[in-house]
């Protein structure tokens, strides 16, 4: 029989034990009668010989080894019974816990899905992230993406790894159906097999297809398959036209495949990197692909690293110009970095933000859980004190100390588990809204769901908090002197517990202070940031990425003509005031950082100052409403063949020329030209990194250079990057359809995509701060509420313990006001102690926030003062109710309680 069956058959076993012993007893009586005794004599003798029936039963139960289980069962039922007796108490305690555990579980579920869960590939621990490494670090660090030639060489040489590569390849698909811009990848033929994923239909790429000149093939994503082919199997073998080239579809990629943790939607299409005819793919200076590898059976990461180092050395010898000081490195592919282990700029990747935001929120939510635990602990303690006599009685009747402690803990465990179950339901309900409200896209959002880890976490959190709030009352219970308690009669001696209770209140207040001050600081920051001037006039501006017709990209002259025609057409749309081209839009992802210097003798690469370079057309200033400070902005005369000119912002003017007489001076910008470029004007600084991030950004200085002076060889690449910015006289998004129609072009394959208003971009640049404020606000409110409930409960209890004393005071002449003052004074003492402790902790917390949240400034005294007064006021209101009740005590009946 298993333990469970024993417990289940418990009543049957008990009946049998009873029958067995009774049979023995009856036999004995019968034997005694046979020996000549009367019936009553026989019974008496048998009973004497038998000893205590109950005691024998107990020993038999012990012998069967089910004792602890029976005790547990008994304790469990006892706990249920006592909780049922006080449904109000049970409900408040359970709800409190459910809120704490529920909120914590939501945070953990997200952290689990985003950061902890292994990547959704078979044997994820055999996958390694691969990068090029250079001994001359730039501001971006040492790690680089692979050049395609280096990747091919490494893959051929490596014995320990099978290597695969992938890179972005987005563009316009024009057949079948309407022209549309889609996001795609170019991959090595073995990428799917290295990751361990397979196509859902059709076939994977073949190695022999992965070269120049092979028949062009593509694998399309699930989304595109549904959109363009209605999910029909005839898509396999069909043709898509991408960037004006036809590809035969050979397979359908599985939905949900993510190559980078920052990729928020399925890719629409995959091509073969080896079929890419762009010169960059043959260039050992162009870092175009990410690489990932799978360790071959029996190989270790260390072996792979050693091998890559030696391959890197050989390549550096063979191609010293491109590869000197360069090698290849491998690292464990971690779930929180994903396959994309590339260079991070400005430490502001979505993944990094998500990580710190999540840990921050988990910390905040743990405080709420702690307050909930303290609350329940104080409730339980109050009950334990009032149950002191009952417990003393049970000890007197022979219950051991351990048994009593165990029973108290069972009670809190039952409470905690019930609260935890309720909390899990709350978590399940609030998980989706939480993800939807997440600023930007949450990495790996699809993998965020309740699973066994989450259940385990909720269980552990429940039991741990049960232990936490159950311990104090449990260990307190039997320590008091039995006799003293029993003799004390109805009066309980609250002295000991008063100190413990004050401790609870103080810690609750302290936790609440931390959350309130943090929320206050976030609120302050958000208000300050929202009122900042972004440097551009964000009203009535629409920016949209633009893909020219692939057919018009053949010659530089054609490209320039095509852009000019497009701008002219758009300018004619009713409602459009002005239009310009721009490559990197303020507050949107994307930037171009170029080194500059004030003479031809540039410092070494890692010491060169950087500026954000933006290529624009002359109307950009008008469209964005950027103020001109000195000189002139770019004009139509600034084109190829004329002197190279730039306009700088006042930040660069200060940095390079001390802010004085910059116009007419020269800057050396090697990426633009080996000759110096002339500064013709100074404009206001624009918060490129967003309202929050710009002040702390490392590279803020700005350079504007004319698109018309982009050299011919770069023109094709630049054209892929350009956006169009439009200032309108009406609501910008209302013009989108007519703009799209006008942009279509002769072949109908020119598309505008990712259209945003500048207002949207400005709002989004504060999304993270707003989200944090919202949640911290919710947590702080919750903490305040719980702390007030706690104070109310503790004071109500402590005051009821003091009623006889209050009675005496009133009998000797104290008035209602004096009593209220007495009680409030007691509560104020606890509150102020909590505020003092909490303020210190809050200072530490705000330091942390400053480090993790862009735009945070050190805590101001006024924020502290405002938040603390809210807290103290709320706490005093919570204490007022018990105080008033105490003041209405009738002295006579109070004294009679003695």
């Amino acid at each position, binding site marked *: 029989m298993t333990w469970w069956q024993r417990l289940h058959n418990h009543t049957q076993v008990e009946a049998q034990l009873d029958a*067995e012993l009774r049979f*023995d007893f009856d036999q004995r009586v019968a034997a005694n009668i046979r020996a000549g005794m009367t019936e009553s004599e026989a019974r008496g003798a048998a009973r004497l010989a038998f000893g205590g029936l109950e005691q024998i039963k107990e020993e*038999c139960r012990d*012998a069967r080894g089910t*004792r602890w289980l029976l005790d547990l069962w008994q304790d469990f039922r006892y706990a249920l019974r006592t909780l049922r007796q006080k449904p109000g108490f049970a409900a408040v305690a359970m709800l409190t816990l459910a809120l704490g555990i529920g909120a914590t579980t939501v945070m953990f579920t997200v952290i689990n899905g985003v950061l902890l869960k292994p990547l959704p590939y078979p044997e994820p621990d055999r996958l390694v992230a691969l990068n090029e490494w250079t001994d001359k670090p730039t501001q971006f660090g040492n790690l680089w993406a692979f050049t395609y030639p280096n990747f091919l060489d490494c893959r051929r040489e490596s014995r320990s790894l099978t290597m695969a590569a992938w890179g972005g390849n987005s563009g316009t698909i024009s057949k079948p159906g309407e022209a549309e811009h889609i996001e795609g990848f170019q991959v090595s033929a073995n990428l799917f097999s290295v990751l361990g994923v397979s196509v859902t239909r059709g076939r994977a790429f073949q190695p022999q297809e992965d070269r120049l000149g092979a028949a062009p093939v593509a694998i399309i994503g699930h989304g595109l398959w549904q959109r363009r082919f209605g999910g029909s199997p005839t898509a396999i073998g069909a043709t898509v036209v991408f960037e004006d080239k036809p590809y035969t579809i050979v397979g359908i990629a599985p939905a949900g495949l993510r190559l980078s943790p920052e990729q928020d939607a399925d890719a629409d299409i995959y091509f073969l990197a080896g079929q890419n005819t762009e010169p960059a793919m043959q260039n050992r200076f162009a870092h175009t692909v990410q690489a990932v590898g799978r360790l071959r059976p029996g190989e270790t990461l260390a072996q792979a690293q050693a091998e890559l180092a030696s391959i890197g050395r050989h390549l550096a010898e063979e191609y010293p110009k491109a590869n000197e000081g360069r090698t290849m490195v491998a690292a464990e592919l971690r779930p929180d970095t994903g396959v994309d282990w590339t260079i991070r700029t400005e430490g502001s990747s979505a993944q990094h933000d998500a990580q710190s935001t999540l840990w921050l929120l988990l910390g905040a939510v743990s405080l709420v859980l702690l307050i909930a635990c303290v609350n329940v602990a104080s409730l339980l303690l109050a009950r334990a004190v009032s149950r002191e006599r009952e417990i003393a009685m049970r000890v007197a009747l022979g219950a051991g100390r351990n048994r009593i402690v165990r029973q108290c803990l069972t009670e809190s465990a039952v409470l905690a588990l019930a609260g935890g179950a309720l909390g899990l339901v709350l978590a399940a309900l609030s998980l989706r809204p939480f993800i939807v409200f997440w600023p930007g896209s949450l990495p790996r959002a699809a993998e965020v769901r309740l699973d066994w880890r989450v259940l385990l976490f909720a269980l552990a959190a429940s039991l741990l908090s049960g232990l936490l709030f159950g311990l104090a009352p449990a260990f307190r219970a039997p320590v008091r002197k039995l006799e003293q308690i029993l003799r004390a009669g109805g009066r309980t001696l609250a002295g000991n517990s008063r100190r413990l209770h004050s401790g609870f209140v103080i810690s609750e207040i302290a936790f609440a202070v931390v959350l309130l001050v943090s929320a206050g600081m976030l609120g302050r920051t958000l208000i300050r940031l929202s009122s900042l001037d972004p440097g551009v006039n964000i009203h009535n501006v629409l920016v949209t990425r633009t893909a020219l017709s692939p057919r018009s990209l053949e010659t530089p002259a054609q490209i320039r003509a095509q852009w000019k025609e497009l701008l002219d057409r758009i300018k004619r749309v009713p409602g459009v005031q002005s239009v310009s081209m721009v490559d990197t839009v303020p507050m949107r992802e994307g930037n171009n950082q170029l080194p500059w210097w004030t003479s031809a003798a540039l410092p070494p690469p890692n010491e060169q100052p950087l500026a954000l370079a933006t290529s624009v057309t002359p109307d950009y200033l008008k469209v964005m409403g950027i103020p001109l400070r000195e000189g002139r902005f770019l004009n139509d005369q600034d084109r190829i063949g004329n002197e190279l000119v730039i306009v700088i912002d006042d930040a660069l003017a200060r940095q390079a020329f001390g802010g004085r007489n910059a116009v007419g001076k020269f800057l050396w910008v090697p990426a633009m030209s080996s000759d110096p470029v002339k500064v013709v004007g100074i404009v206001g600084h624009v918060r490129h990194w967003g309202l929050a991030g710009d002040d702390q950004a490392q590279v803020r200085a700005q350079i504007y250079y004319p698109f018309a002076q982009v050299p011919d060889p770069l023109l094709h690449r630049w054209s892929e990057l350009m956006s169009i910015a439009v200032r309108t006289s009406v609501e910008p998004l209302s013009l989108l359809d007519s703009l799209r129609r006008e942009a279509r072009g002769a072949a109908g394959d020119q598309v505008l995509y990712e259209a945003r208003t500048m207002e949207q971009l400005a709002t989004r640049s504060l999304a993270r701060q707003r989200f944090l404020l919202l949640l911290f606000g919710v947590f702080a409110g919750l903490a305040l509420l719980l702390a007030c409930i706690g104070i109310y409960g503790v004071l109500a209890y402590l005051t009821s313990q003091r009623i006889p004393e209050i009675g005496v005071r009133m009998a000797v002449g104290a008035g209602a006001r004096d009593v209220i003052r007495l009680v409030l004074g007691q509560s104020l003492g606890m509150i102020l102690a909590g505020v003092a402790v909490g303020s210190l902790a809050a200072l530490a917390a705000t330091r942390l926030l400053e480090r993790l949240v862009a735009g945070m400034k050190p805590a101001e005294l006024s924020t502290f003062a405002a938040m603390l007064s809210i807290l103290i006021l709320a706490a005093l209101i919570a204490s007022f109710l018990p105080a008033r009740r105490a003041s209405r005590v009738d002295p006579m009946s109070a004294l009679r309680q003695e």
Partner: protein
Amino acid sequence: MRHDNSSPKSDLPQGTLDLLILKIVTLGPIHGYAIAQRIQQISRDVVQVQQGSLYPALHRLENKGLLAAEWKESETGREAKFYRLTAKGRKQLKEETESWARLTGAIGLILGSEGDAN
């Protein structure tokens, strides 16, 4: 454990009761009362087993799988719990009997040699 359940109240050495019970049960299925009677008879009233020791021992042996039990009609016509030896119990009995014989033999030797010396 608060309940001390190991030592029988008779003067039997530790563990001997289990051995005696196993031995008696080899004679065939038998209920608790009869086991006590049988031990008393065979030992000519020297060993008297208290119920307070007997029944916990029986339950312990059953729990260990050395004894099996079933409810059958007794000689008086009433249902009683009859114990019988399991294969595991038989093995245990054999081992314990041998070790008991060795021990008593050894003790006998020691006691005997002491007499010679006097």
